[in-house]
């Protein structure tokens, strides 16, 4: 029997899936793993929850007055802080993305999938989509918790909590995804460079927490020292937080750069999305380069 006949016999046996089916299969696997691994889900929520509750309870009285002066009478520290916590929770989930990649490499699942006919791109796209779905779900939970805190504190209405209504909520989800991409890419870069889950997590924390304080997340930019204001200007967290905050407070809150070309909240949202898009291109590009290298069969 010739090799072509052998090949034909083989072809009857197995054919790979289309690219989209591979994306869907990968997505399902990662979501299933996330649900199964309840400690990861819990961990991803606990830090943002603790931050939101402690910060509002400890600093709420102190910061409440100045916040009201800056943003208006119906803005409390809870409504000011919730957008930051939404961004924080997205970063925690993004940190886990790189750790999941390391787990797959250490458990041999990564090679196992590389030996299968799964499309290389689908392997990574499906996983990224699963991460984004987790981020959207956790964002929803933070938004609910924020409102519960507001209601307990001051009995504020949903209307004062999210000024732009249902469209604003959808906008928040969209902004969080746009924001999370660069940090998801960063966490995967850290994972591929360090090849170690603990080191990758340390990289992520080292970037995450200093950048959070040097941004508009916890206090208005104007009260930060000059050098921190400078850091805040080139800090993607500022843009992520301000875009979510603009949607929730229904006003232009971006102060690190002065944009007036649009109207109202768009003076914050449009420049923020552009800046975040640049970060996504840079970090996403590096991550894709490294992922392609690790998935390639070329000897290194």
């Amino acid at each position: 029997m010739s090799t072509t006949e052998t090949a034909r016999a083989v072809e009857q046996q197995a054919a790979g899936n289309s690219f989209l089916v591979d994306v869907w299969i990968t997505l399902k696997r990662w979501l299933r793993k996330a649900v199964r691994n309840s400690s990861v889900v819990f961990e991803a929520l606990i830090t943002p929850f603790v931050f939101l509750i402690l910060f509002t309870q400890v600093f709420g009285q102190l910061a409440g007055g100045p916040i009201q002066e800056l943003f208006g009478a119906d803005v409390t520290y809870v409504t000011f802080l919730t957008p930051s916590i939404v961004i924080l929770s997205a970063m925690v989930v993004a940190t886990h993305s790189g750790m999941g990649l390391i787990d797959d490499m250490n458990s041999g699942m990564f090679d196992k999938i590389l030996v299968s006919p799964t499309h290389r791109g689908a392997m990574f796209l499906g996983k990224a989509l699963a991460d984004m779905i987790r981020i959207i779900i956790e964002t929803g939970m933070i938004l609910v918790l924020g409102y519960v805190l507001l209601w307990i504190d001051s009995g504020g209405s949903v209307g004062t909590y999210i000024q732009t209504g249902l469209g604003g909520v959808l906008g928040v989800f969209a902004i969080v995804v746009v924001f999370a991409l660069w940090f998801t890419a960063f966490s995967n870069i850290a994972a591929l460079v360090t090849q170690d889950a603990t080191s990758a997590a340390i990289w992520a924390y080292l970037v995450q927490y200093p950048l959070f304080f040097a941004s508009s997340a916890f206090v208005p930019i104007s009260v930060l020292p000059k050098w921190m204001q400078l850091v805040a200007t080139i800090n993607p967290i500022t843009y992520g937080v301000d875009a979510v905050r603009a949607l929730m407070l229904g006003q232009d809150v971006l102060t690190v750069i002065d944009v007036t070309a649009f109207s109202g909240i768009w003076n914050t949202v449009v420049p923020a999305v552009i800046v975040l898009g640049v970060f996504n291109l840079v970090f996403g590009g590096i991550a894709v380069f490294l992922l392609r290298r690790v998935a390639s069969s070329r000897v290194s």
Partner: protein
Amino acid sequence: MSAETTERRKASSTAITARNVELTYSDGTRAVRDIDLDIPQGEFFGFLGPNGAGKTTAIKTFVTLLQPTAGSVTVNGFDVGEDPRAVRSSIGYMAQETSVDEELTARENIQYACEIYGVPRSGRVERIDDLLALVDLADVADKQPSGFSGGMKKRLDVATALVHEPPLVFLDEPTTGLDPRARLCLWEHFREINEQGTTMFLTTQYLEEADELCDRLSVIQNGQLIATDSPNALKSQVGGDILGITLEDPTAEQRAHAQRVVRESGLFEEDTIEPTDEGVAIASEHARREGTDLLVALREAGFTVTGFDVRSPTLDDVFLAITGETASEETADEDQPDDTVQTAVSR
């Protein structure tokens, strides 16, 4: 698998053709050198060699994980460089380190494998049940493998490599680190799969394993194939079983004297007799039968024998016979996964 496809595969030419395959890592390590190989469909073939001999690197070039630096590999009629996806669809691969997703149940692991290999949805449920039964995991199908023993995880790994009924399965040191019972159990499964017409490609450090399973095997050393033959033919190069005598006072003179006595006893006229650190060793087809007579002969010559053993030839003996050096002299820096499997097992 139908009898007809089985028949066709058995009758066909080659599952793997390798021509002048070289693989050099960027640090200059020549892990695989000039490998030439033709493995017919249906054969149970093995690579036998010590850690670092290049077994894992070679298998990784066959399964498209590594691109050969030079030469060509054709698997099931597809070129690994030109048509890697067709190769991947047509093979099953079990890596040296056990590769299962511990967050998914045994059933979900197999189901995921079915999905990525595009096993038709219609037959999937039965296929999964059949595989669970084949590897004796049906009663723990809905448990997560984190609580499984090393052998159970390996069996689950085997099942996931078989979902698409590949005509060719690669097993990279499938039993390293397993206890003897788990090893026997896996051997049974491998034989069963091979009997259904599947070509099997195995790497191992154990002659016993290659002997037990393989129709043919290649001895690999420093990335080169130094002998390819049936296990019996290779073992016959050693000259039979090894009979070791330990003397109470093994000075050089005593050992030489003992060697002479053995030679003159007439028991092992055609066999290799060599002095060892402890006394003397004989490689002979009838080592087991003549052992007691030899002891008597030695006692009559005035020797005090403190140790006596007869064993089958090991990888070391085969290596010694073929290359003149022992397998364990090799360094283990080429096949890096050898270390990872150790940690995976001890975990």
